[in-house]
């Protein structure tokens, strides 16, 4: 009877019971949700105190032109007050005072904002926006053209709004979203990348632990080295799957809870709001606003778009490539772990294993832009890179035969690496205190199989 289940069980249980696993499992989704929620929360937690700002207008042109907002109250003071404001600013209770010295159309820099603290971008933007709108109108008026308001209105309403549609086999139209396809593909590629590294390293450490603690000889007098290796690899694969599933479930739960508890009234702001607040520039702000309005965080719409990407097939493929990629590399990591006596020795062998993974990530980046180029195609076929590159392509509708071929190659690939690695592993775990190089590994590989 195979003892793999027994080994697998130990590998799995000791890892999921670890504190680090539990912490990561809880922390991951919180961080992930925070990525979405923090910009939105920042919006809610914004300063809600009223700010009073004094204006001293030496030019006399702008009285009443800067409107009060919900939080900003402007009061116009006579010029005689300026000295008092300057010298006893602290006691006046104003947040800031604005001094306009001249006609801004002639001298745009004749305006200054004083405060005893750092002035927020919001305040500055509000003032400059109000004045700019007013000045624009003034300027337009100075041309004295008939029906100018109407013309301007027309110009401002020019918009191009392309809807991307996906044609089904039967000619049905479905609305698709390039942005969402990109985000999904990026997410998949990164997940595969990170998990191959994290859990591949766990395999390496696990093998090394057994070797250095010298328990391995006792174990392989009870089970075959191959069973021990496979038990460990599969056990850790299940740990990885457990983590992914828990992350997805928790993230979904947190986002749902946040959505219902915090954002009941307002539509959930997009992350773009956060960027806008930081960027602060008028033009980008205007663009962002439009974008936010059109793509706004709208569950229904996003779900609809995700639906156009065949979520079930995509998810199945994701799990397949995720596991396939992990299995392909895990056995190599196991072979490395078996060859070395301590982790510092791992560098020279880690290098050739990590190179293809990193290349795959770069190619995956290219795939977001051009998912059907020749380069991307080949890298999505090679088993060492396909788990990452193909996952980046999947949301962009890859022909069935390509997916099938890539999957078949991946299976062949991990069968090969497992066979290859097992031969090194078998000898490596019993070798101590030897300076190991590639020649040595090759010798181990060629030792008889019996």
């Amino acid at each position, binding site marked *: *009877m195979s*003892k793999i289940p*027994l*080994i697998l069980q*130990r590998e799995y249980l*000791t890892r999921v019971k670890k504190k680090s696993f539990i912490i990561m499992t809880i922390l991951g989704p919180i961080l992930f949700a925070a990525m979405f929620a923090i910009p939105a929360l920042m919006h809610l937690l914004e300063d809600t105190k009223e700010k009073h700002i004094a204006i001293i207008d030496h030019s006399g042109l702008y009285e009443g032109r800067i409107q009060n907002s919900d939080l900003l109250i402007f009061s116009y003071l006579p010029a005689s007050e300026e000295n008092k404001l300057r010298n006893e600013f602290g006691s006046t209770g104003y947040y800031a005072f604005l001094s306009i010295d001249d006609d801004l159309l002639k001298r745009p820099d004749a305006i200054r904002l004083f405060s005893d603290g750092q002035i927020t971008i919001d305040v500055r933007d509000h003032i400059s926006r109000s004045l700019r709108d007013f000045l624009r109108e003034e300027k337009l008026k100075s041309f004295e053209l008939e029906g100018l308001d109407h013309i301007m209105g027309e110009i401002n309403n020019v918009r191009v709004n392309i809807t991307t549609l996906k044609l089904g086999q039967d000619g049905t139209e479905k609305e698709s979203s390039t942005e969402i396809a990109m985000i999904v593909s990026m997410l998949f590629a990164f997940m595969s990348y990170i998990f191959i590294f994290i859990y591949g390293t766990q395999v390496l450490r696990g093998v090394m*632990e*057994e070797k250095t*603690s*010298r*328990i391995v*000889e*006792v*174990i*392989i*007098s*009870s*089970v*075959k*080295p191959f069973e021990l290796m496979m038990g460990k690899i599969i056990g850790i694969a299940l740990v990885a799957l457990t983590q992914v599933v828990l992350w997805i479930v928790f993230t979904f739960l947190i986002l749902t809870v946040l959505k219902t508890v915090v954002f009941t009234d307002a539509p959930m702001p997009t992350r773009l709001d956060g960027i806008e607040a930081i960027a602060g520039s008028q033009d980008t702000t205007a663009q962002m606003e439009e974008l936010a309005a059109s793509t706004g965080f709208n569950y229904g719409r996003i779900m609809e778009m995700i639906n156009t990407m065949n979520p079930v097939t995509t998810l199945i493929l994701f799990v397949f490539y995720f596991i396939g990629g992990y299995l392909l590399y895990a056995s190599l990591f196991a072979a490395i772990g078996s060859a070395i006596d301590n982790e510092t020795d791992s560098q020279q062998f880690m290098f050739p294993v990590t190179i293809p993974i990193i290349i795959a990530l770069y190619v995956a980046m290219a795939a977001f832009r051009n998912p059907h180029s020749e380069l991307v195609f080949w890298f999505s076929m090679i088993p060492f890179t396909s788990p990452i590159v193909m996952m980046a392509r999947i949301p962009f509708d890859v022909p069935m035969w390509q997916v099938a071929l890539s999957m078949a190659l991946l299976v062949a690939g991990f069968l090969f690496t497992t066979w290859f690695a097992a031969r090194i592993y*078998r000898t490596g775990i*019993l070798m*101590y205190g030897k300076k190991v190089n590639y020649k040595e590994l090759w*010798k181990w590989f*060629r*030792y*008889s*199989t*019996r």
Partner: protein
Amino acid sequence: MSFLEARNVVKDYSGYLALDHVNVAVPHNTIFGLLGPNGAGKTTLIRIINQITGPDKGEILFDGRPLKSSDISRIGYLPEERGLYKKMKVGEQALYLAQLKGMSRADALKRLKFWFEKYEIQPWWDKKVEELSKGMAQKIQFIITILHKPSLLIFDEPFSGFDPINANLLKEEILNLKREGATIIFSTHNMSSVEELCDHITLINRGKAILTGEVSDVRYQYKENLVQLDISGNLEQAYTLINEKAEIVSTKSVNGNQSLQIRMPREMDVNHLLKLVINHCDIHGCQEILPGMDDIFIKVVNENKK
């Protein structure tokens, strides 16, 4: 009949011949010493018996038939370099390793309880291995090795790391196992324990079995006509008489008697020696001295070098 037999076993590590047509026969229900200097090939042979690695040529017979993979559960192996999972709890780990040997969980639990009670180490059950001392961990490893009541036990340097009290406990346990019918292979450099415990030995050097047989036979075979003679009385004359025919290697005084070690020439025997001195002094004892395994080991290995 041999319980375990290695026939013409060859193991070649890419040009390095670890075992060169080795024949070893371990009789049923005996303690068998597998001896040899470091790097002689003992561990390789033990690993082949444990099916950790396979022979390139030759075969292993177990209980009269070729060794098969299910025999693993009938063998208990305590390697020289031994360890446990440091972060795992003692009890949990013992259960796991027992199950790997094919025991059911319930069985393993029952027998572990017995041993933990016998050695009064129940408080260790929930401790992590890293909290145990080296000697404590060795004890656990010993229990794990014998837990599934194997019919063949292989101990590689079992006494290293044990204090004299625990080493003695271990010795008794090994003798107990023999009484209960187990066959035991014992690999060690500690020759006094070989003399004390082993029935048979095979000495391996540089991949070859160079000496094999029952311990008493081997010692007899290598005897150097050395005799211990305890006398009193007219010592001067006795010395002269003995020196004429043989060589006195050493003398020492024990309880007023003189204890001599005498090396006799080949043609001389004990009767002859006694006749020489019997009319001149009182004889209190006379005994042939057999060489120790230590001396034999060194002699055989050195001769093999030439």
